[in-house]
């Protein structure tokens, strides 16, 4: 928070709660950015795995389950991969949606807080 020049705007409990909410949303936003990065990587990896599978002509594929690589027949690997890809893409979509929602809420709060405090408050990233 910037230290103002002894401004007159009083901070009410409602203002404080808005500021708190903005802080929480901002934290969640940064967490989400990291989570989205991981989710995107997971999606890419699954896509690569899928392509590799198509290119290879082995009947038995070494598929990672837990910490070991189990020998799994090709069709089972294909269906497992499909399911994993679907789950991963749904997860990514969910995260992106949450990010959009948070950005919208933060924009709303910025309007309210800048409206009341103008220069006495700084809500931007350093």
């Amino acid at each position, binding site marked *: *928070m910037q230290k103002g*020049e*002894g401004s007159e705007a009083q901070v009410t409990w409602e203002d404080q709660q808005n500021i*708190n909410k903005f802080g*929480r949303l901002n934290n969640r936003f940064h967490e989400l950015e990291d989570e989205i990065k991981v989710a995107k990587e997971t999606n890419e990896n699954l896509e690569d795995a899928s392509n590799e599978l198509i290119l290879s002509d082995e009947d038995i594929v070494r598929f990672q*389950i837990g910490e070991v690589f189990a020998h799994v027949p090709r069709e089972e690997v294909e269906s497992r991969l499909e399911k994993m890809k679907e789950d991963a893409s749904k997860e990514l979509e969910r995260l992106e949606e949450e990010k959009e929602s948070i950005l919208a809420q933060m924009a709303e709060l910025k309007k309210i807080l800048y409206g009341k405090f103008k220069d006495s408050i700084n809500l931007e990233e350093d």
Partner: protein
Amino acid sequence: MAAAASASSPTPHAAVTERRGIPGASFVEDVETFLNQSGLDANSSLAFLQERLQQYKIVEMKLLAQQRDLQAKIPDIEKCLDVVATLEAKKGTGEALIADFEVSEGIYSRAKIEDSDSVCLWLGANVMLEYSMEEAKALLEKNLENAKASLEVLVADLQFLRDQVTITQVTVARVYNWDVHQRRIKQATKEE
């Protein structure tokens, strides 16, 4: 587990006095009243608030470390559940499961896992117990549930903590501004 303090009531400035050992920051309605009531001048008040912020920082570090631990534990448990499910599925077929596993870094060996009704679970503290498939699954699922619940509580604690930090930071800014304002007024009256 100690019960968390009640959620904020509908009164104008409901201050949750503490949550699981984290002191709540009381919201200051009016700076002048606040300073008169506490009997502190602006500087002492600022010092007290800064100290509070340091305390919060320490608690935050601790909670973040716990959060990292839990976040690592959960995928581990999920992997174990995956393996148990795979073994269970294989049980009916009579085929052995062939798996390549890591003997040492970069070195793998092949294992043939015959049909079995039981698995051994590592419980920590150098203890490993044999369980039937169903028991193992139940235990792992319970551990997963507990871990996820603990994580949820932890996240809520962190949010509470960060709110208290924000309230304290805002109070610091307001006390400082009030002090600047007071000095300006004194200066102005002196010059008259």
